């Protein structure tokens, strides 16, 4: 894919060499760093790789395939599709993340896939702060045929979520997708508001939200580790969705996240349209990272 062009070029120079020597390994490690693996994880991956391959005569193809396999091995345990539980009416999903990562769009995409499966989804416009956030979600509701529950501007998101839950239960909806305002993990007051949404919904049902999805932008560098760490701590994130993988960012941070937290990666966003959500495929992802199209 286009997004791997740069890395392919990086690897290109080492791949013509016959022997996998120190210098070649260093260049491979650099290529991983340049894909946002982070210095520690890149070093670790290459250390494992060198143990098994060092000094061997290898072709380009073999190096790439073996490195992709090494990376896929790390990603496999976290590749878990997201399936709402059909016994729950509704399965309550809270969508969280820092500003602008693609939360609202991802909700639109999820609503689209449920519509295609004949499931009834209800959307909750829980971002009552950002300009036109409600209207943005309403457009997604119209596109996917999902009803959107909204309150007045600057309404209390927790109260809105509570009312939406009541309605979704009454109507026997399959999925309740709760959008939230983007917030930086280091702002404790905003993180506390997120906890309040959960607390208030639990007055109605102890078990909700059944899923808390953290939406991450693939363009993000090492700060993603901090984001996941804090959101997980504060709101018990159950899984990740990585967006904007159609861009030039390679999203190597996901490898670091898999090693550090082991949270499921449910899906990846590859565009701005309703149908641009894909399952997370570890081998595909790994092959993309090392430049095998």
């Amino acid at each position, binding site marked *: 894919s*286009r*997004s791997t062009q*740069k890395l392919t070029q990086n690897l290109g120079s080492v791949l013509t060499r016959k022997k996998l020597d120190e210098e070649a390994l260093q260049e491979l490690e*650099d290529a991983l*760093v*340049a*894909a*946002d693996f*982070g*210095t520690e994880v890149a070093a670790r991956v290459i250390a494992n790789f060198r143990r098994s391959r060092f000094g061997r005569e290898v072709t380009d193809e073999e190096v790439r395939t073996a490195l992709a396999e090494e990376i896929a091995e790390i990603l496999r345990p976290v590749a878990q599709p997201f399936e709402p539980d059909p016994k729950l009416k509704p399965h309550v999903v809270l969508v969280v993340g*820092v*500003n*602008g*990562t*693609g939360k609202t769009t991802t909700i*639109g995409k999820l609503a689209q896939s449920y519509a295609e499966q004949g499931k009834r989804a209800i959307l909750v416009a829980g971002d009552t*702060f*950002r*300009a*036109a*956030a409600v*209207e*943005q979600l*309403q*457009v*997604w509701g119209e596109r996917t045929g999902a009803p959107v529950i909204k309150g007045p501007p600057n309404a209390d998101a927790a109260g809105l979520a509570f009312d939406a839950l009541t309605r979704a239960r009454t109507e026997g909806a399959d999925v309740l997708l709760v959008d939230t305002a*983007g917030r*930086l*993990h*280091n*702002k404790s007051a905003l993180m506390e508001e997120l906890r309040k949404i959960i607390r208030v919904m639990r007055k109605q049902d102890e078990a909700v939200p059944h899923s808390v999805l953290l939406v991450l*932008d693939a*363009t*993000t*560098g*090492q*700060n*993603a*580790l*901090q984001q996941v760490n804090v959101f997980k701590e504060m709101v018990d994130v159950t899984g990740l969705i990585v967006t*904007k993988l*159609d*861009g*030039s*960012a*390679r999203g*190597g*941070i996901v490898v670091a996240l898999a090693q550090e937290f082991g949270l499921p990666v449910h899906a990846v966003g590859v565009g*701005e349209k309703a149908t641009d959500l894909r399952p997370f495929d570890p081998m595909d992802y790994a092959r993309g990272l090392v430049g095998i199209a």
Partner: protein
Amino acid sequence: VFENLSGKLSGVFDGLRARGALNEADVTDALREVRLALLDADVALPVVKDFITKVRERAVGQEVLDSVSPGQQVVKIVNDVLVEQLGGAGAVPLNLNATAPIPILMVGLQGSGKTTTAGKIALRLASRLRKKVLLASLDTYRPAAQLQLQQLAERAGVPSLPIIAGQTPLQIAQRAMETARREVYDVVILDTAGRLSIDQEMMEEVKAIRAASSPAETLLVVDAMTGQDAVNTARAFNEAVGVTGIVMTRMDGDARGGAALSMRAITGAPIKLVGTGEKIEGLEDFHPERVAGRILGLGDVVGLVEKA
């Protein structure tokens, strides 16, 4: 996870306590740590390599002052070079040296903060410089994008171009400029849709918008949390539209913000402003020395001094 660079560097030189000039070997050891620190702060790899070369040239052979350790001396050199590379001391203001109505074009990846920043700049120009500012959204793609800018304009107390459904971004740009000329505005801020640097069609579109509006400023809006991809984004947007200034958003987060150095190095354009919050008031001048301290993990010494 991240150990303070100055601590690490002192470690490298522990027991060494060398006096006299910094030699090649000392500097090489120290620069290994600097390299890691910069990469962990999300400075892009090719930019780190150039940076290290510059520091090495500056450091080797330099006398170590009696009052500091060799490690501290290297930290000082690293910090100096970093501040320089980020644009030297002081902030570069928006360029308003053009005949009114002065167009300002906002470009960048999806979700980087363009629309919010457009509103913030409008508020700043209107309230601080008493400029008559028109906000115009050219985003016909993202759901409710034009409405978002309209609502931000209301919050900023600044007019926005009336929304006409069905117009193309280029047509809106032309209408914005005509309106601004007719109604005698000082500044027109043109907010564009987010686009990927590898999306050729969308990049062509923004080129056409630029050609039609001849902006005095083309501001690339970048998320401070951006990783290694900063170089690709910077290069592609600069080649397509000639970036004249950079805005780093979400500096209110805890990312080290190494993308600032990458962006500046690739485009050569000054970082002019930083976003420090979701609210319309959350916009500040860029201070290279503060961001240098942040990237290196040395703390915002200058900021603390100024606030005291």
